[in-house]
């Protein structure tokens, strides 16, 4: 890929994210303490509840005041805050190479992935990356080490768009690779069979992952703002269609809109956040908007 996503690790861009917190919506597992609530009720800072003492419990957590009043032994439980696993699933299929405004969807998605990875690593969360097309092309397990971002960017840089018949199988494989609960961020145009795609997402949800879909569009793909006689090429299949753009625009937009509604319905039914982004949307602003929205929902 000629585009180097490492140049997107722009300090100015990332400095605008420093004041925001990326919070997981649910409880995620983790080994490291952080800002995210652990699914394991443990002994940490924030009190959660009481339970009866059992043999082997640390006597430091016994609530002696209750014992004094009721003559029964209870131990205090605390929510342990820990880090999360952020899985970045970047679609590198041929359709992601569509570019009408100078930047392709893949480049746009790569930039988003870099931004999210950087943000998560600053919170000491583990970030992993999966590149997928018709199968998983690259897999970097989640790590919270300092050089993880550079590794992510290097992998993306070495990847080229690849003509793909279907990405459904790749999503299934990726779901298998997301072993620990966390946030799964899908960066894709989702131009595939929706049912197959939703099966993969259901699998992620079944594994209790928080799934966020960054649905990427090229402006031409969504609104077809073209005039005159056009020869349309399908970047996935190489198929060619010739027609008068303005005469099919209304029908095209209606078909896209119907598909978007169907996709939105599927996502809502599965509690999946879907964020639509066009490649001419400001990259940082789009990300900030999303994070602000997420922060409000927590």
């Amino acid at each position, binding site marked *: 890929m000629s585009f180097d996503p490492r140049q997107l690790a722009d300090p100015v861009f990332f400095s605008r994210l420093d004041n925001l917190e990326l919070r997981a919506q649910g409880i995620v597992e983790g080994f490291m303490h952080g800002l995210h609530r652990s699914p394991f009720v443990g002994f940490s800072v924030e009190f959660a509840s009481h339970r009866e003492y059992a043999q082997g419990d640390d006597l430091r957590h016994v609530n002696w005041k209750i014992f004094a009043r009721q003559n029964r032994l209870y131990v205090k439980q605390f929510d342990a805050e820990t880090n999360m696993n952020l899985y970045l699933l970047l679609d590198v299929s*041929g*359709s*992601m*190479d*569509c*570019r009408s405004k100078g930047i392709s*969807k893949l480049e746009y998605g790569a930039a988003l992935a870099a931004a999210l990875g950087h943000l998560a690593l600053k919170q000491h969360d583990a970030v992993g990356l999966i590149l997928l097309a018709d199968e998983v092309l690259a897999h970097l397990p989640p790590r919270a080490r300092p050089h993880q971002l550079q590794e992510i960017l290097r992998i993306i840089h070495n990847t080229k768009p690849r003509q793909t018949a279907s990405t459904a199988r790749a999503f299934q494989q990726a779901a298998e690779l997301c072993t620990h609960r966390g946030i799964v961020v899908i960066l894709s*145009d989702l*131009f595939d069979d929706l049912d197959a795609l939703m099966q993969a997402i259901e699998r992620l949800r079944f594994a209790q992952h928080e799934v966020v879909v960054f649905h990427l569009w*090229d402006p*031409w*793909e969504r609104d077809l703002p*073209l005039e*005159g*006689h*056009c*020869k*349309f*090429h*399908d*970047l*996935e*299949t190489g*198929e060619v*269609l*010739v*027609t*008068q*753009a303005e*005469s*099919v625009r209304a*029908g*095209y937009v209606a*078909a*896209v809109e119907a*598909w978007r509604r169907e996709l939105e319905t599927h996502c809502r039914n599965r509690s999946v956040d879907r964020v639509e982004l066009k490649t001419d949307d400001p990259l940082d602003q789009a990300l900030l908007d999303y994070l602000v929205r997420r922060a409000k929902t927590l």
Partner: protein
Amino acid sequence: MSFLQIGFLGALAALAIPIIIHLVFRQRSKRVDLGTLRFLRVVLQQNARRRRVMRWLLLTLRLACVALLAVLFARPYWLAFRPAGEKQTVAILIDRSATMDVKTDGQRLIERAVAAAKEIVAASGSNTRFEVAFFDHAVRPLAGSYLASGGRESPDNRREADASRSPKRDLSPSELLGKLQAPAVCAGGTDYGAVIDWARDVLAKSPAGPRTLHIFTDLQQSGLAWSEVDSLPDDVVTHLHDLGRSAVNNIAVTEARPERTWLRPQEQTAIHVTVHNGGIFTIEELPIQLTLTSGGRRVELKEQVKLEPGTSESVRFDLPPLAEGAWQGSVAVETEDDLALDNQRHVAFVASPPYQVLLIDGRSAQSPVLAATYFLDTSLRLAPAGEIDAASLFQPHSILLENGLPALDKFQVVVLADVGELDRGDAAKLARFVDAGGGLLVFGGENVTGPRTAAIAAAGLGVGSVGAVANATDLPLRLGTWDSKHPIFAAFSDPQLGDLARLSFSACTQLTPAADAQVLARFKDGKPAVIERRRGKGSIVWFASSCDRQWSDWTRSRLYLPLMYQLLGHQTGYLAGGPVRSAVLEGQVELPVDAQPGVVAKDGFSLVVNTSPRESETERCTSDDFVNRFGLKLAAAGPAAPAPAPAATAKASLGTEMIDSEFWPWIALALLGSLLVEGIVANRTAA
């Protein structure tokens, strides 16, 4: 179906243009990469069939547009329905010029011509179509009047000519015989060219079949040279009926020309008279009598001349001082000859003071020299104060606005010089004056502003809205353009005669012309300088600058006096011909077709109508001269040519007029409809 302009069918080759466009547009497309074509595929599957149909429809519409355009220019027409056999067309032209009043065997030539024409109509078969017209200097089809191309049409002529061009049904022989009557008086000149042109047109547009032309005339030689004509279609067989007499004894007054038609009361003038002997005998003492009347007054003068055969003599009648009034009468020779109509010619005079011009000064000045009307008054009098030059056409009467308007009955023109606040009653009086035919000339000035001229505008004496005074800045205002065809400015069409652009003004009144007003001149910056508006029978002219030295030094210019005379000459009607105008019944004349010799009172002037002096020349041409002049094919020259194919018929016509059976308006309508539908379909069709 046949075509008048079959050559235009060659334009059908342009059908290739939409085909080329169709093919070119199908090939040219730009590449667009999309992530998926799934949505496009859905749309295209939905309307693929509809799109295919629409594209064929679009191609068909474009082809139809081009084809209709080509056919439109070819001017197709339907041939008349023929029940059986071929329809014969017979055109009959009957000379009704003044010389057809000559009698032979006690019967006028025109009556003999009509009788012969009736015989032709009566003897015709049921399958014959007639085109009949009388002619002199104009062509008069039985259904109306038609003036030959090249001639100037009066409004009356034009109306009748339009009527004759409108679709009309063919007359039955009995109807035709009923309408075919000899006119009571023949007075017009002879113009063979006009009627041959008319015959060429009607025969070219006639249905296919034998075509015959009958001409009843006295072969007067003076009628040959009026106009050039195109030859008749090749298959037209001509029958020339020569009704003229070999020798005509004609004594004529060919000229009666007053030295001046507008005199001052008690002024003397003379009339120059020319008489001609067209007979073969010498007349020793031909009495010539001049008779003039005005009201109850009468002047009669007599002279005698000796006239040799074929010669002309001139006589001068010195008139006594004539009292004020409109004088009219005639000069007549007392003789018995074959053609009585040209034995007299009508004359008219007006003995009256100059045009009376009322100058209203809107500015009270301490000195007469500073008055707004001072220079105008002086230029009209052409003489020191209190006097008037005998040659001046105008007699000015200057008054101050504050003294109120006098009775306007005796004035022909009223001039408002720097007049602002006019009394409403005076404004209404001025409006009635203009309605009755008077002329109003308004000059600008400091007083002429919108608010101050409200009463003038309310009375309908404005030519639009009046704005504020516009002062020139670094450069003076100069006239930039003017209508050199308008009578006021026609005299200045050649800069050698006076360049109006040299006049300069330091300010002007801003005028915005009304919709019914005509801007006759503009300053170089585009502001209107002279505007005219018609009202009732009169005219209103506004000049945007002053007529004195308030805003300009043009009163010292040598253009001042000519321009003022042109302005006032236009407003009085002098530029249009003065109080007495004359016309002759021949070729290009703006007269009603039924005009007769005499003196006719018109609005503001008298019109003297006389017969054409050419009609007094009774020399005849030979049949060969006539036939060769117009390229006719006489019936005696050989059997009639077979009727050509309709296409050949169409080719023979130059087709400058619409004929009854043409249907190009419908094709034009279809073309417009096709273009409209094409536009709609093209906008809704994917290529």
